[in-house]
C-alpha cells in the first residue's frame, strides 16, 4: 500500500539516497494555472464563435469540434500528463480514437441527407396499369 504513516509533521521526511535509485521529484514542472487560463480563454472563444452566424451545418460542427479538440489536448497532455507518458499509453488511446472515427464515418451514408448517395428524388407516382 502506498501510504505514509500519519506523521506529526505535515511534510514527508527527506529521503536518503537509496541503492542506485534517483532522488525523486514529485512531478515535472507544469504550470497548471497557465493551462487553466488557456482553457478559460478557449471557452470564451467557443461561446463567441457560437454567435457568428454560419450557414452550413458541417462548418459549424467542424469548427466546434476543432476548438473543443484544442481544449481537450490541453487537458490531456498537461493535466493528465500524457505528454510524459510512454508509447504503451499512446497505443491504448490510439485504437479507440481510430474506431470512433470509423464508427461515425461509417454511419454517415445511412442517415445524412443531401450527399451524393442520399439525395432524394421526387416520388414518381403510383405505377401505371
Amino acid at each position: 500500500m502506498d501510504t505514509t504513516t500519519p506523521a506529526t509533521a505535515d511534510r514527508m521526511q527527506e529521503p536518503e539516497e537509496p541503492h542506485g535509485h534517483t532522488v525523486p521529484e514529485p512531478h515535472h514542472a507544469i504550470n497548471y494555472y497557465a493551462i487553466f487560463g488557456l482553457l478559460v480563454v478557449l471557452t470564451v472563444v467557443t461561446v463567441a464563435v457560437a454567435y457568428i452566424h454560419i450557414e452550413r451545418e458541417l462548418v459549424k460542427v467542424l469548427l466546434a469540434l476543432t476548438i473543443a479538440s484544442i481544449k481537450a489536448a490541453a487537458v490531456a497532455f498537461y493535466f493528465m500528463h500524457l505528454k510524459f507518458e510512454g508509447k504503451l499509453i499512446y497505443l491504448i488511446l490510439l485504437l479507440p480514437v481510430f474506431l470512433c472515427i470509423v464508427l461515425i464515418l461509417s454511419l454517415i451514408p445511412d442517415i445524412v441527407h443531401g450527399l451524393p448517395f442520399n439525395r432524394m428524388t421526387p416520388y414518381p407516382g403510383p405505377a401505371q396499369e
Partner: protein
Amino acid sequence: MTALEHGYVPEEHAPDPVTSHGDPTRPGKIGIWLFLASEIMFFVGILGTYIIYRSGAPELFARHGETLSKGWAGFNTLVLIFSSLTMALAVDASQRGDRKRLAAALAVTVLCALTFMGVKAIEYSDKFHHHTIVAAADAPLTVKADANQTLYATITTPGRQVFNASMGSFERSSPKKWAEYVIPLQGGGEGSDTYTAIVPAGAAGPNNVNVYIRTSAEPTSKDKKVKPASVEYGGGVFVFDGHVHDVDGGKAYAFEGWMAPYPESGEFDINLISESEVAALPGARQVEEDESVRIAKERINADTSYGPWKNNFFASYFTLTGVHGLHVLGGIVPLSILLVQALRGRFFPHHTEYTGLYWHFVDLVWIFLFPLLYLI
C-alpha cells in the same frame, strides 16, 4: 526495500539510470488508461449517434437546441474546468506529501462536482416543467355594444353543447332549451362601448362558438337579445408552449409562454414543435405569468413535456448529459474517500493520480458536449 520503508514516493516518471527509458509504466496506470479508452468508445457511441441524428434533421435540432440554457451550461463548463485544475493540484500535493494542500484541493474539487450536479438539476427541472399542450383555455371575450348597459353572454357551441360551469364540462342541451351557461360582461360604464369577460376553459371543439348577448342573466324566450356591434371571442382550441405549474389542487396548469390558435389544417405534431414555431403561427400571442392563463387538465387534448420522450434531439440531449452526470456523481465517491483519508493524514499518491485521470476525462467529455449540444 519497499516504498513504505523508504518513506518516500517513487517518482512516476523517474529516468532509469541504466537504460534511461524511464520507469516501466505501472500496471495501475495502464489499467486506468484502459478504462478511459473504453469510456472514450462509450461516449463517442452516444455522441456519434447525436451527430448522425443531427445530420438527418439539422433544422429540428438547431431549433430545439435554442431552448437550452447557454448561460447555465457555460457556467457549468467553467466550474468543471476549475475542478480539473484543483484536481491536478491535488495530485501534485499528494506526491509532495503536502497534507493541507491536498485536503483543500480535494475539497474544492468535490464542491465543484456538487455545484455541477446542482446546476444540472436546475436545468432538468426547468425542462420537465416546459410543456407543449393542445387544449382549450380561458378565452377572452370582447363585445362592442351600446354603452351603459348590463349585459350577459351565453355561450353555446354548434350542436347545442352548453358549458356547465359547475360540472366544468360541456353537455348537450335540448334544442328547445336555452343555453344554461351565462357569464356577466364587465365594462360599458362611463360611455365606454367595450364589454369584456373571460370564458373559462371549455371543450376541445371547433373554433366557431356561438355567443348570444342578452340583457338578463336568466335567458328565457322572452329575453331581449342585444345585437352587438362586434363580438370577439378567442375561444376554441389552442396550442401552448411554455412553462407550467400545478394550480387548483392539481386540476389545472398555470401557464406562461406562447399560445396560438390550433391550426385548422396541415400536419401538427406537438413533439416536433418548439416555442419558436408556436410564436410563428398566425394569431400567436405571448402570455406573461401574471396574466393567470389557466389550462384545465381535463380539457387537455395532447400534452408533452420537454423530456427525453419528446423527440430525437431531447433523447440524445438527456442521454448524453444524464450519462455524463452519472460519471460526475460516480467520481465524487473516490474523491470523498481520498479527502477523508487526507484529513486523517494518509496519502495515496497513485490512487489520487488515477482518480485525477478519471476526473480529467469527465471534464474532457463535457468540453466536447458543451459546444455540440448547446452552441451549434
